[in-house]
């Protein structure tokens, strides 16, 4: 049985009717039409569906849409500023940190969350923080260089 909930995504409020077993990633992708969060495993193993919930990265395939009601959700579509790309996005372009791009949304959101908390992370901090976001293309080196290059 569907229930009407209010979701705050990228500072915009949406009233959506969702099923109790509907995941946040499915609602974001199919009800709200935001395709930045990707479905790579649907088991919380790959991190491709990462979104920020109250500023913290979560695997949106493991969050029920109903659990997200009343929380502040941010997806890759919502981090650009008036000046264009978010500095982490810009760094990913500059450092060649994107190959196929399927992991990029999740990777960037996790990195943004880290940098919001800790503007000067060590390489170990970055590796630890990103270890839940898998990438099969880059070997992570350019991604880590990109995150390092974002200065406060």
């Amino acid at each position, binding site marked *: 049985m569907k229930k009407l909930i209010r979701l705050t995504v990228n500072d915009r409020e949406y009233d959506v009717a969702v099923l109790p077993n509907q995941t946040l990633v499915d609602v974001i992708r199919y009800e709200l039409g935001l395709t930045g969060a990707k479905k790579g495993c649907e088991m919380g193993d790959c991190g491709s569906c990462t979104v920020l919930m109250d500023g913290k990265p979560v695997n949106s395939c493991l969050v029920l849409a109903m659990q997200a009601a009343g929380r502040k959700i941010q997806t890759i579509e919502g981090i650009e500023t008036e000046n264009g790309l978010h500095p982490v996005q810009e760094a990913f372009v500059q450092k*060649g940190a994107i*190959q196929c*791009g399927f992991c990029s949304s999740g990777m960037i959101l996790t990195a943004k969350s880290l940098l919001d908390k800790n503007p000067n992370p060590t390489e170990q901090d970055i590796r630890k923080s990103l270890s839940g976001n898998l990438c099969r*293309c880059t070997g*992570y080196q350019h991604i880590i260089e990109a995150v390092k290059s974002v200065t406060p």
Partner: protein
Amino acid sequence: MKPEYNVIGKSLPRTGSVDRLRGAPVFAADIQLENPLILKALRSAHDHAEVVAIDVSKALAIEGVVRIFTAADIPGKNLLGIINKDQPLLATDKVRSRSDAVALVAAETESAAHEALAAISVTYNPLPSVTDPFEALKTDAPKIHPKGNLLFSRKIRQGDAEAAFAGCASVIEKTYRTSMIEHNYLEPDAGAGFVDTDGTLVIYASTQNPHYDHKEVVTLLGLGDNQVRIIQAATGGGFGSKLDLNVQGFIGLALFHLKRPVRHVYTREEAYLATAKRHPLTLTVKTGADADGRLKAIKAHIVCDTGAYGSYGIAVASRSAVHVTGPYEIEHVDIESYCVYTNKPFCGAMRGFGAPQVAFAHESQIDLHARDLGMDPLDIRLKNCLRVGSKTGTGQVLTASVGIGECLEAVKPYYREALESGVSAPTHPFRRRGIGLGAMWYGIGNTGVQNPSTAGIEMDPEGHITLFTGCADIGQGSTTVLAQIAAETLGVQPAEIRMVVGDTKYTTNAGATSASRQTYISGNAVKDACQKLGDVLMTEAINRLHSPKDSLVFQDGHVVIKAGPENRPEDRIDFPCLAKRIHAKGVPLFWQGYFDPETIPLDPETGAGSPYATYAFACHLALLEVDTLTGQVTLEKLVAAHDVGQAIHPENVIGQICGGAAMGIGFALMEEFEPQKTVSMKDYHIPTCADVPTVIPIIVESAEPSGPYGAKGVGEPALIPTAPAIINAIARALGERIYHLPANLERVLAASISSGHFGPQEVTHG
């Protein structure tokens, strides 16, 4: 002296990056369609069974289920395969593995489709199955295909290996085993499609080879070429597995019958179950070296388990045979490689086509010889490595661009520094450090068979340039590289060239994005097309500039008289002006380019031939630490030197090197796909950023005369030397060698125990 280029060798921003990091709907699962039907395939319940009956009545009665297809619904030829056609899209008389699709559901919703899968009743008559390739070769083994279980064999014979062993000071014979590997690209296979207003079936697919997909779908449905259009969607990694038809045939079949938009997206579980894997190889390799450490002879017996279908198995068996000598000159060669069917999920292309598996063997062998003869592992490689003028195992004489010696020299300072810093001395009671080398060679393009590419270039009467290429960019950056090659040839900036990529309606065949072939082969096709257009522009410019053609060059969208002392306006003419004049004369401004590397097929009996027009070379150095009590291997550093001919886009090359090294770490230490046990990403671990050390990439440029601006390739070479370097480093750390990949915790621990390291070590201070 190195030539000077305008855009070759410059790391420009890659095409498509911004769309991807803004979350734009570029992947096949993201593409918006009006009310699409959901497709799901039912897979076999047995390893090997006759399909007696399929009852879909209960499934069809489920609300939302629109249609269920079986093999009987396929109007054309129900047999797929890029090299040999042996794989039905939907099972006919029998299933040969659990990957086989038996029926296809089309439903209004995901849940109705799932319900329908469970409600289809298939009556099977189970048959005896065989999962071991050696068992499968026995005469009484269950027959998987009508022609038997041996799909293909490749022999390479030169000189007299047996006689040569007799004169060798060091003869080593070992058996090596590698595991089935899952590509594990992050994007599960996906596609979508609709029927266009003119009746064309339009299929978006996550693919490495849109023109092959097109041919297969056309044949499957019995349609004409212009009735099917494949558009490559953004492809979230491929690594070889998206060379086979995954969803494309299913989407085509549904569009053909239902004329409604459809979407087919694999779950991760289905991507694991139903797509190609890396061939597990069993190789017995015997090599002999003289007292100076010079390799004299090799005898190798290779068995490639291709599972239920051929896919790229023949290519893997053939390439394995050619590459098992390693990047070394060996006079006497006796190699046999077999490709064998079993009732396992099928194996196909995966980054390296057998070369990573055989590199594990040849690099272990050369380290064993070094130890046997008291030689340094780097010195013995330098002594044996191929050079200009060397003859390979197939009798091919290498005439240029043989950079293996330079790669070995490039890692030498890091190697010597590590040795001098006492890398293998214990620093902890339970930990041992190790250093290891891995070298490789890799033939660019397909093995001794034609594999051309084509490309189109067009200038409109206003002077705008469009490049048409069928080359699928799957994240490696080929679109950027091909734009650079076109821009260099025509003297413009890459951003000024409009790119039309991977759409069978507008582009011609560029062949597969595989075998590290696109920069070299499609790059040459692009250059050829641009030179033809360039010639027309130059010829027209002669009339205007009153200067001979050899005095003219392209510069910033103009033809100019080169190297004049003053830069006079009358010495240059811009492209729009030329294009308008050429167009007015009715001379074409669209030109097609073509390139096929010059190869000579391998002789079926002796293997003699020139299988590749050029080879890439590399050497990796691994520094690591082994915990002797847990078997945990911690990588400290990888140094990766690659001869790529000429790096068109150095950042892309480094991206390939780092990504390949990470995949090589997985191959070396953790990855193993076990049918029916490996179900999801919980059971199969790929390296995370915590598992990968800093990689020091070194680009070696030994220009290839036949390459576009000297380029070769790097995609697969990046992965090949990593595992051998790691395994050699573990062997050096423990004094005990591992012959079965992956060197997971259990195998490293077993090696630690048998080497006597399982216990406290004496720590050396100072």
